[in-house]
């Protein structure tokens, strides 16, 4: 019975997604009272199946239960998440369009792509972070290193000879690597792959020596022992990998690279609605069952206030902006 219910629900969601979106959502006066009165659209600015999509869906399900309305997940991938984010920034600010905001869409994308037409700070009403996934320095098993210091020594001894992989030129994994080179004064050759999965495979096979991989992409390989994790880019250790030190513990000061994910709405969404959503998102992420699903997917459940969220973006725009500038020169 439960299954039939669930399937019927998803069929409904499918038809809603197919029908509602192209027609344009009916323009309703923004009313905080009685919100939400109809289904909410959650733009996931990446394709189905990526870690952002999975995190979005993990949160959307319980959030819709709490709000009492369906949340229709709309995957609008493209150009590193900037296509979907741009659409979200231009949507009606009535609380019925939300988007998943990440390091890619709100920091790296606007920094790397000239064509981005939104301001990641001014054009959004930030709701709350949902999770943070560290970048993990992983190395091929045959590379004769046991610690981050070994990697630095090796790179200093053989400048330019080590290869580090990434999910693409200008991707967050690439910039996390460049940040490491800048912080340690080392030189390595960057080898771009088409995706996190391809880059991870390349470390496993030894085609590249190391990778600053996003946790969801490398966690299972680390656990099964096919690649070695040396450090995580977050300020605190990851509960998923309690034995792996942070970059700072490993001796690289000022290094912080993580991919955070949160929810945001277009700027101008009524404050009461943002407050309500903030409250509900915090409740959802604090639910142990949701937290476990997030953790299994490599994302550490994290929350913050709308103001803190905005500050985080402003800070990182500066940090990443500096890295990208040094690459261009």
């Amino acid at each position, binding site marked *: 019975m439960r299954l039939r219910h669930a399937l019927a629900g998803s069929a409904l969601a499918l038809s809603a997604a197919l029908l509602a979106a192209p027609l344009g959502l009916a323009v309703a006066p923004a009313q905080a009272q009685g919100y939400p009165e109809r289904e909410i659209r959650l733009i996931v600015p990446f394709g189905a199946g990526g870690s952002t999509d999975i995190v979005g869906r993990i949160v959307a399900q319980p959030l819709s239960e709490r709000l009492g309305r369906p949340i229709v997940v709309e995957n609008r991938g493209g150009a590193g998440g900037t296509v979907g984010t741009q659409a979200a920034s231009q949507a009606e600010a009535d609380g019925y369009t939300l988007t998943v905001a990440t390091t890619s869409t709100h920091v790296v994308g606007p920094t790397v792509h000239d064509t981005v037409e939104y301001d990641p700070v001014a054009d959004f009403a930030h709701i709350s972070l949902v999770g943070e996934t560290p970048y993990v320095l992983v190395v091929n098993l045959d590379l004769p290193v046991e610690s981050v210091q070994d990697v630095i020594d090796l790179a200093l001894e053989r400048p330019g000879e080590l290869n580090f992989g990434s999910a693409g030129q200008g991707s967050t994994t690439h910039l996390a690597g460049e940040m490491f080179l800048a912080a340690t004064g080392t030189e390595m050759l960057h080898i771009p*792959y088409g995706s996190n999965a391809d880059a991870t495979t390349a470390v496993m096979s030894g085609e590249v020596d190391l990778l600053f991989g996003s946790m969801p992409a490398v966690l299972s390989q680390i656990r*099964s022992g096919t690649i070695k994790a040396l450090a995580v880019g977050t300020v605190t250790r990851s509960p998923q990998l309690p034995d792996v030190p942070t970059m700072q513990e490993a001796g690289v000061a000022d290094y912080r690279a993580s991919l955070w994910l949160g929810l945001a709405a277009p700027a101008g969404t009524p404050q009461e609605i943002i407050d309500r959503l903030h409250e509900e998102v915090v409740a959802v992420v604090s639910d142990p069952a949701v937290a476990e699903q997030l953790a299994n997917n490599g994302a550490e459940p994290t929350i913050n206030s709308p103001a803190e969220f905005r500050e985080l973006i402003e800070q990182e725009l500066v940090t990443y902006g500096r890295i990208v500038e040094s690459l261009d020169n």
Partner: protein
Amino acid sequence: MDFLSNMGLGFDVALSTSALLYCFLGVTLGTFIGVLPGIGPLATIGLLLPITFHLPAIEGIIMLAGIYYGAMYGGSTVAILLNLPGTAASVVVALDGHPMAKQGRAAPALVITTLASFAGACVAIVILSAFAPPLAAFALRFGSAEYFTLMVMGLVAAAILVQGPLLKGLGMVVLGLLIGTVGQDAVSGLPRFTFGTLELYDGISFVVVVIGLFGLAEVMHNLSLGDKRESFVSRVPWRALIPSRKDIKDSTLPTLRGTGLGAALGVLPGAGPAIASFAAYAVEKRIARDPSRFGKGAIEGVAAPEGANNAAAQTSFIPTLTLGVPGDATMALMLGAMMIHGLVPGPQIVQNNPEFFWGLIASFWIGNLLLLILNLPLVGLWIRLLAIPYRWMFPAILVFIAIGVYSLHQEAFDIFLVVGFGLAGYLFIKLRCEAAPLLLGLILGPLMEDNLRRALLLSRGDPLVFLERPISLTFILLTLGLLALVLLPGIRRRIAAVT
């Protein structure tokens, strides 16, 4: 017998009532999703993913996997009947499947597809269950250099695929390669041919090109025929469903050859199933006593790619399960589903979660059997689709195309692109240019370029890297052999004579 006890364990899991139910649900849903052009398993699995959070891991994954390979069955159906392929693999099946349908032999074509799919899947499952770990290790030895030389070989093989004048075919391959250059360049990160738009940043989606060049162009072409194309058939006697003994005999060996190719290529993360279908078709055409029958309804041209496609669909689970490396977006989604349930894909999954691993593999067998049982009677139903007058059929097709394409990225822009490619496809039909080589160029081009540039980056610019690595060298030698076959004057004359 380790293998038998493992499979025993697997069937224990997969034959439980709830596992059977979810398997059935998955394959049924997959079949119907596959029939709708453009709406692929990816969107469906994405929508159903949250539901599996509430299911036990094994049942959830069995259902999602069922959708994946069920859609392969369904995709071939609509490709054969209406020349509306939605995937690269079904493009190849349609090359001869659709001409068969036009000749009133849709039923045997569909029955053979179903049987070839089943055979391909079954053989591949044996390989999957017996050799998964060593095969995964082999796949890891494929680096950028190996991928590049493999793709080069694929392109040369495309020359065999070409029907009619060689120059036209090569022109279409080059056009495909050019379309493949649109979008962000992976190495420099700079956009190419995007005209400053974000929509073209990730290149032109393969599905958009397929649906436009084949589906939409076919609709336009049919309408231009006027009354001649009102309907293929008025009535299908049930007897006509049964393929003749000759059909079965003609497709047995091609199915097996296709299965072998598909099983091997499916293991490689990336374009496995698509390349497998093209390769299987090219092989059959190459070794056929009368290659001129191909493209005009040769049953071998249906059986071989179908076997290859389904074998590859099964063996593509090898890298996903044992390396934790997804071959495509759909596999990535399945991987995500597994991780949410706390299952860690990788070499240890066989030891750590034997009931999951073997249960899933056993479910593939059951699922494929269910598909066979489900699809054979459905053939009769699908055939009746052909009796619908075209003036009612084509608006429905257009609506489904629009919905399907829109569901890809929720971009209206994609629909405009489909219209553009539809017009181009119509032009190609009028100019008698085959669109299949274009697709091969489109699939292989970007992969070839990225891997070439990566291989050269890794070797610090030394091109000898392609000769120094044994697997890569093997592909180069095979390619030279193929080239010799195509270019040697005697053989060329023969090709000219038969086309």
